[in-house]
């Protein structure tokens, strides 16, 4: 049943009454993981989605009443920092932050604080996780993939949808699709997820989708070279991006030589990963 979660997972949705929160919670309700509570300060006492999910004013009460242990955060950026700390202090142990645009100084404090308490943070700016036909946490469209044995991990949400649907059209299924988030500072990196996929019996091959900027892909390469047991196919976006240009808020910035697509590709290739130069090369490399 994917990675990170298990049969005891009970979901809490922070920002459940918002435009995005409500729409995507409704999608998530079609899947197996129970959604036991929602939080929107000022709306406690309401029930949403045809009376299926109770709303609380604060996370502490929601956890006490519902036994929630995993949170999905849809709260807008200016309130998201507070929401993350609130979840941490209420005893939540796994937090998915869908929100994009959280100030970077907040993220440094959040990451430090959560690490001290051994709380796992996925994101921010993550699309969440999808196990086709089984589990959906976040916003990944459910019909982009079919069940299978390929684990897909990505820094970019929409690019992972693109690649999942290319796999689907070639008849290749997915064991789990997870976005680590496109922001410059995220809670969980490629290596942590590769580790989980290594231990996941449903995952036999891994597709890693990176992009320019940062060192995540190089660290993944190091890990793969040290005897990673499952075959890895990698694609790096931004191969033709002009150097020195910041490509969007996704933290895709080439600020030093270690951030270029070329360097990442070389590191991954040397580590033994197969390199896809275009998304449509991936199915062939998985065969």
């Amino acid at each position, binding site marked *: 049943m994917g990675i990170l979660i298990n049969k005891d997972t009970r979901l809490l949705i922070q920002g459940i009454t918002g435009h995005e929160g409500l729409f995507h919670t409704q999608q998530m309700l079609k899947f197996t993981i129970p959604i036991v509570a929602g939080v929107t300060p000022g709306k406690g006492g309401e029930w949403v989605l045809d009376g299926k999910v109770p709303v609380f004013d604060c996370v502490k009460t929601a956890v006490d009443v519902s036994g929630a242990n995993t949170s999905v955060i849809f709260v807008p*950026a200016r309130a998201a920092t507070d929401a993350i700390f609130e979840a941490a202090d209420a005893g939540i142990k796994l937090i998915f932050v869908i929100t994009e645009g959280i100030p970077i100084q907040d993220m440094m404090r959040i990451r430090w604080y959560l690490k001290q308490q051994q709380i796992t943070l996925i994101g921010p700016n993550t*699309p969440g996780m999808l196990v086709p036909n089984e589990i959906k946490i976040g916003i990944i469209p459910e019909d982009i993939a079919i069940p299978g044995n390929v684990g897909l991990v990505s820094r970019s*949400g929409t690019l992972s949808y693109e690649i999942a649907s290319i796999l689907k059209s070639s008849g290749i299924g997915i064991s789990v699709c997870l976005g680590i988030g496109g922001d410059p500072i995220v809670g969980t990196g490629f290596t942590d997820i590769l580790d989980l996929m290594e231990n996941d019996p449903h995952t036999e091959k891994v597709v890693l989708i990176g992009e320019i900027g940062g060192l995540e892909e190089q660290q993944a390469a190091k890990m793969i070279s040290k005897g990673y047991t499952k075959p890895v196919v990698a694609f790096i*976006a931004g191969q033709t991006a002009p150097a020195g240009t910041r*490509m*969007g*808020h996704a933290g895709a910035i080439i600020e030093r030589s270690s951030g270029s697509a070329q360097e990442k590709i070389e590191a991954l290739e040397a580590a033994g990963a197969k390199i896809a130069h275009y998304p449509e090369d991936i199915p062939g490399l998985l065969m």
Partner: protein
Amino acid sequence: MRLHEYQTKQIFNKYGIPVPRGKIAPYAGEAKQIADEIGEPVVVKAQVLVSGRGKAGGIRLAKSAKEAEEIAAYILGTEIKGLPVHKVLIEEAVIFTQEIYLAITIDREAGLPVLMASGSGGMDIEEVALRSPGKIIRLPINPLLGIQEYHARLVAIYMDLSRQYWRQFAKVLSNMWQVFRNCDASLVEINPLVITPDNRQIALDGKMIIDDNALFRQPELAEMRWLETDNSIDTESRKFGLSYIPLKGKVGCMVNGAGLAMATMDLINSYGGEPANFLDIGGGANSEKVGAALKIILSDSYVKTVLINIFGGITRCDEVARGIIAALYEIDNQIPIVVRLSGTNAKEGMQILMERNLNIASSLSEAARLAVEFSQRVPNGNTH
């Protein structure tokens, strides 16, 4: 968002980091008046957001107020590395015996602030980093604790700073941390911090970059941006929260998500075309934002075709389609537009687009191929 030197120094001054006495002058006449007030000699410094201003002739010493006026008039009439100079900073000329490099920035891999310092200040620090990396100290900082006095002592010892300067140096570093923290900066740099013959420590030059994502809680800093922006496309894309970077090709691009946008651009290149821009509409864009994005792309006269690639997740394709249609009612567009919609509400989106004669592609590679083909047609080879 980068701040100008004079803006950075206003902030330094507010936080108790000593800066040279000085004032900003938009006209040469004012430069003379300021130089008179400050006392000769003065330094005239062009306020442009490029590095290497000094070498490019943007920083010059004036021995008299009259000379300050002449230099200001000259600098205000020139361009530095392609950028026009709108203001000059007139400052007292400071005599010093020692130069130090200081910066607080973010190590994104570690997810921590990092304090960087070197006793070889003044010159190009990247050069120092390249030639003698041992001369730069890097200290990771606990983001909840900030810079403490012991950090300052560590740095001082490392760079052999004489003990008499330690207390004052610790104060500069502590104030610098306050600036970094309170202004939501991703970079605060003092280069150089100088020590004068009468033992004062002064920030001769400073640089700051503010995190764009934090501007909502930094109204005063956000204000500084509007004073400096003279590019209307820049203003427009910021207003709608779009990441837009103009490039040199003919294929205008609109994509949701930076990774997908870059993969789209890579494909355009692979078919022999060249993207005219990078444009990420972000997640959950509404029709208004999409319309604004399309108008920005079409305002570039080099654009010969537009490629819209949307894979809906949190973004809904019907919203995108509505934005495209609304924008096309407002502008008289003659160039071909290729649209590819997939994911959340893609069917509804396609339905809406039927109203206009757009080129619909069913996959990303087909969209890229079509867009490149259209962009290479001779002028007047219109498909509409």
